[in-house]
């Protein structure tokens, strides 16, 4: 019994972490769909910079994870490559890659998310859909402007845990600290340039910039969004694998 009493505050914190995450998730519900141009600046330890360009489309799916399509524009040798992801709340995501030179749509396994995305400090896991069900949560602290929550992946992940600082105004993260499997602080992402969008009378905020710093390699990556539209009703067929070798 004593053991249970000692455990209760932690259970309470765990529930509070989940409650806040659910609240944040509900606040971001109803965005319908979005599209944007993405620019990724890769900075090595010596400060040299390289830029990558992508197009991004997302469609909100009720009662399941979102569907997203990324089209690679620069570097030119991979231009036209497309990655379609159907994320799911509990199950592994469905993911396909379209290779324009072969005109081929390949199903790829989504469990392997820990590798780098286009040579950046972002992994596929960082950029993929962040469904609530894929983590357990623990409330850490709060102040006037933010909550701090720890989340631990339920399934295979490149991280042992993540600590998110969530803005009460934007209802989105402003900072995420990523801990590697050895439980060392490995990367820090800061979210800036939040922009307000109005969708069906609801205010939704989206970050215009994520700056990811790798503390171990001293490399950095910056993701900038431009020409972003939220509340777009994309056609269902746009997110189907059958359309990957047809869409422009």
């Amino acid at each position, binding site marked *: 019994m004593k053991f249970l009493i000692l455990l209760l505050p932690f259970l309470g914190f765990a529930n509070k972490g989940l409650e806040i995450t659910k609240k944040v998730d509900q606040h971001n519900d109803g965005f319908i769909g979005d599209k944007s141009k993405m620019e990724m600046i*890769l900075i*090595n330890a010596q400060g040299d910079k*390289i830029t990558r360009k992508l197009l991004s489309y997302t469609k909100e799916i009720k009662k399941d994870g979102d569907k997203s399509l990324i089209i690679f524009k*620069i*570097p*030119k*040798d*991979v*231009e036209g490559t497309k990655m379609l992801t159907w994320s799911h709340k509990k199950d*592994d995501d*469905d993911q*396909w890659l379209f290779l324009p030179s*072969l*005109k*081929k*749509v*390949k*199903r*790829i*396994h*989504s*469990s*392997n998310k*820990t*590798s*780098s*995305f*286009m*040579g950046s400090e972002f992994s596929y896991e960082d950029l993929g859909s962040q469904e609530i069900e894929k983590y357990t949560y623990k409330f850490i602290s709060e102040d006037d402007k933010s909550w701090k929550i720890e989340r631990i992946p339920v399934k295979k992940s*490149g991280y042992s845990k993540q600590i998110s600082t969530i803005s009460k105004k934007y209802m989105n993260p402003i900072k995420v600290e990523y801990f590697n499997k050895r439980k060392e602080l490995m990367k820090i992402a800061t979210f800036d340039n939040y922009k307000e969008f109005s969708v069906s009378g609801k205010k939704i905020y989206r970050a215009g910039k994520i700056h990811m710093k790798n503390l171990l390699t001293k490399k950095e990556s910056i993701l900038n969004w431009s020409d972003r539209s939220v509340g777009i009703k994309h*056609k*269902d*067929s*746009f997110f*189907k*694998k*059958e*359309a990957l*070798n*047809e869409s*422009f």
Partner: protein
Amino acid sequence: MKVFSLLFIALSGFSLTEFSAETGFFQRLFKNDGNPITESYNPAIGLKLKFKHKNESFKAKVIIDSLYDFVDKDRFYLYPEEAWIGFDDGDDIIKLGFQHLNWSSTEAFRPSDIINSRNFDGMIKNANKIGEPMISYKSIFDNSSIMAFYAPTFIKPLLPGSKNSFGAFPDFNKTEVIKSKTEVDDDIFHHQFGAIFNFTLGKSDIAIHYANHIDRSEPIFPIIFLNPFVPIEVIPTYYRVSQVGLTSQTAIFESILKTEFVYRNYLDYEGFIKNSTFFNKSTLDKKDHFIGTMGIEKNFSLGEGELTILAEAISTFSASNSQRNSAIFDRDALLGFRYAFNDTQGKEINFSIISDLKDFHQHIINLDYSQRIYENWKIETGINFVDSIVKDNYFGAEGIDTADYVYLNLKRFF
């Protein structure tokens, strides 16, 4: 380039137009095959032009590929990979013009990848395709799609010439298609049609296809003799084949399982060879048969990079012995890996070995490396090694046993 793009935008009002190009210097050096006719060193330049235009539901695309060899002057080609106009409202797509279709699910052995002729100048494992004039219609449903095409012409494959170390062939003056048990013709007009139904079931992408076409993947080479000792001509000859097939890609146990099963029916023309006066009849015999391919692909994170292990095998069933022996791939297995460094230069290593499972006397080994240098340049290099004991009269890989080479490509993207 910008001037071109702006011009098209101005002409078409609110639309999207892109113009891009890829050029390169391609060099390959073959092991000396002892043949005084073939060229061991092939320095060449290549140019690929790409144009895309979209305006509401109208779209158009053109990709033209070309290559010129400075030493082997016969090694020159210029053809459209794609050149079509189309209507696309997202659910229904109609396209008219030179198109390029790929129905395969596996990586190396692809018996379902039969549409389009190929350019056999390079690697047999992944020969480039030539666009073919056709009209196609695709309709996309909830979890499925159907696509049908009709192609009125037969575009012949690009076979290596006599100076090409890939070719055990003389220069061909003409190409023929078998029309009936007693007739061939060299007409370019031949009806070809087919359809594919794709659907997703759980974690499986499944496709069922049918095609009635001139089989360009496996030409036969009848030798016409003046008398038993004097050959006068070899003419690449193609059969009409009706093929049904089932392909799949399934996510299972953190891997992708890939299969292809096809049945090839040589229609009523099986008797052509028997009725003919060719002297190499036994090597030309074609019989209806099944082909099955199965493969597995598994990815691993390795540091910041990604390692992909690939294994595939192919076998032909109920074909004649000569047909099985003469097929480029039959009872073969591939084992390979790809390591993508996932770095800013896009460094990548590919290795594969294809072995003959009948008696392990044929092996094709590939090792390739590529990376970007600066942003718009890419270097590709590698070695291709064919190890075969010539025992069945140039069957399978035996015909290219001397085609060991190293290559170095430098590409520039615009």
